[in-house]
């Protein structure tokens, strides 16, 4: 009996360590496999894969730039629309509803529900509901009144960068507002009381005392939202039109890194297939970078408050 006890401990520890090592192995394996899969494309195109502007599989002219551009442009639209709204929702729940915690909790739950809706349902809704609304009530009026600006110069037909950006905004609002909410809730009350005692209005307290204190964490939420926008696939694929395009015109069809993978992974072979996998490798590194940054910012924010309390 005395000898069986440590053996049980050893067995348990070996099993658990194996599970923990497995997680590291997955991330490392992902990088290695995607690199090996894209080796042929890296050899063929080298650095020009990131510099060229054309994606013509039939002529073996392949470059990632139109898709990097599409991902950046749609994410930028999503952030421009989604970030102020997320910030507003977070401030409303954590500052305005401080004395109505139940209502704040209920509202938070409703916004969180948006995050649970599957991406493909956003896409379905985008195709049948959002595209007609945006086209008829936003894009056409903008094009008619402000068409001289390059952003709105295209003839709108709905499947474009702009619609993809709006769908993305709706999808990242729950992520960004939930994290911002958490960050604002760790701002110490003494911070607010000091401002109120100086005679500040509600807005001045939020603007000059709460938001500056939480800025690192809010930036973390911003980056997390950006990460989600970068990687989102199905909803974007369904509404963006899927034509590689580098243009300032928001009302033009485009494609993103993820929409390209979803559309062309199966029809490809040889160097073409390898190029699609290299697109995945680019997305992998972008996601890695964005995640590192977001975790670091959020970690710094929470660590800072723990020290101060």
């Amino acid at each position, binding site marked *: 009996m005395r000898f069986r006890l440590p053996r*049980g401990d050893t*067995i*348990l520890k070996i*099993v*658990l*360590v194996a*599970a*923990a*090592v*497995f*997680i*590291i192995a*997955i*991330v490392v*394996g*992902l990088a290695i*496999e*995607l690199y*090996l899969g894209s080796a042929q494309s890296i050899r063929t195109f080298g650095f020009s894969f990131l510099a060229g502007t054309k994606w013509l599989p039939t002529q073996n002219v392949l470059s990632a730039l139109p898709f990097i551009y599409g991902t950046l442009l749609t994410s930028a639209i999503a952030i421009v629309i989604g970030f102020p*709204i*997320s910030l*507003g*929702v977070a401030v*409303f729940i954590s500052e*305005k509803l401080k004395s109505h915690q139940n209502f704040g909790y209920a*509202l938070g739950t*409703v*916004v969180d*529900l*948006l995050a*649970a*809706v*599957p*991406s*493909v*349902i956003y*896409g*379905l*809704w985008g195709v*049948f509901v959002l595209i007609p609304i945006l086209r008829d009530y936003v894009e056409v009026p903008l094009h008619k009144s402000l068409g001289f600006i390059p952003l709105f110069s295209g003839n709108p037909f709905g499947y474009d960068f702009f619609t993809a950006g709006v769908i993305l905004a709706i999808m990242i*609002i729950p992520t960004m*507002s939930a994290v911002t909410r958490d960050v604002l809730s760790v701002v110490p009350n003494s911070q607010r009381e000091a401002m109120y005692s100086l*005679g500040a*209005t*509600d*807005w*001045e307290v939020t603007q000059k005392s709460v938001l500056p204190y939480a800025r690192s964490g809010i930036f973390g939420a911003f980056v997390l939202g950006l990460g989600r926008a970068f*990687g989102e*696939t*199905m909803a974007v694929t369904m509404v963006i039109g899927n034509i590689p395009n580098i243009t300032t015109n928001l009302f033009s069809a485009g494609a993103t890194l993820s929409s390209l*993978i*979803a559309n062309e992974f199966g029809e490809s072979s040889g160097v073409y297939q390898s190029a699609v996998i290299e697109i*995945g490798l680019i*997305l*992998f590194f972008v*996601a*890695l970078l964005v*995640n*590192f940054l977001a*975790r670091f910012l959020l970690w710094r924010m929470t660590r800072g408050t723990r020290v101060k309390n």
Partner: protein
Amino acid sequence: MKNSTLPTGISLWRKILNKLMTVLIIVTVVLAVIPLLLILGDVFIRGAPAISIGFLTKLPTAPNVPGGGIANAIVGSFTMVGIASLISVPIGVGAGIYFSEWSSSKLSTVSGFMNDVLTGFPSIVLGLFVFVVIVLTTKQFSAFAAGVALSLVMLPIIARTTSESLKLVPTTLREASLALGIPRWKTVLRIVINTGKNGLLTGILLAVARATGETAPILLTASTSVYFAKSIFQPTASLTVLIYNYGTSASRIWQTQAWGAALVLILIMLGLNLLVKFTVGRHLSGSRVET
């Protein structure tokens, strides 16, 4: 509402700005909530007419032949998520226990960080990984490959929630058990897990819900099919890929069925969420007894 308590010397501009910002903040809340109501409303209104017994029990028909169903897609989705759970639950729970019980070890820090990174990866990258490793080598789309891809989606969620809920178990409980001469493995498996098991279950259900709604990893690994799969090693239909294919098709009948399938999917996810709320409730009341 605080204006009445403000000093009387306050300038008009500051009062106006304060009101203006309050209005603006309320506008953002309205803008955030409207899409949710519209999406849920549209799924129910457009999806309900498509739902019938036949819709749930029949196989799909050709694009413009009415009367087809989504039975194989429902079975396929459950098969894939089942395979994913078989893989991810033991590994995820194991890693979660390690993160919580050996939290000071270097491996725990590194693996925990990698786990967070894995959570943030776009699911299509995970799908592409399994596509390269399994689909390209076996030259076969399959429910098995989709299960592996979905397990990568579930794994970090399960590991994280497991470690979070086990960290809530009071240290005194572990010390009391060890002081009684109970070996560590028994303390962990019998006492720590037993105390934190509702939180653990919540995490698993959340991960299952997330996997059920995933599309991109399945599209890249299982493709789709119009029949019931005879084994897990052949192309298999799933609810989400069916919604994608039907929703982007030109067939009116398929488009309606996409909304019907979306409603079925939303109801499954709603059910899982209610189950989570139920277990969280029990979890909370359970921990209250302990303290």
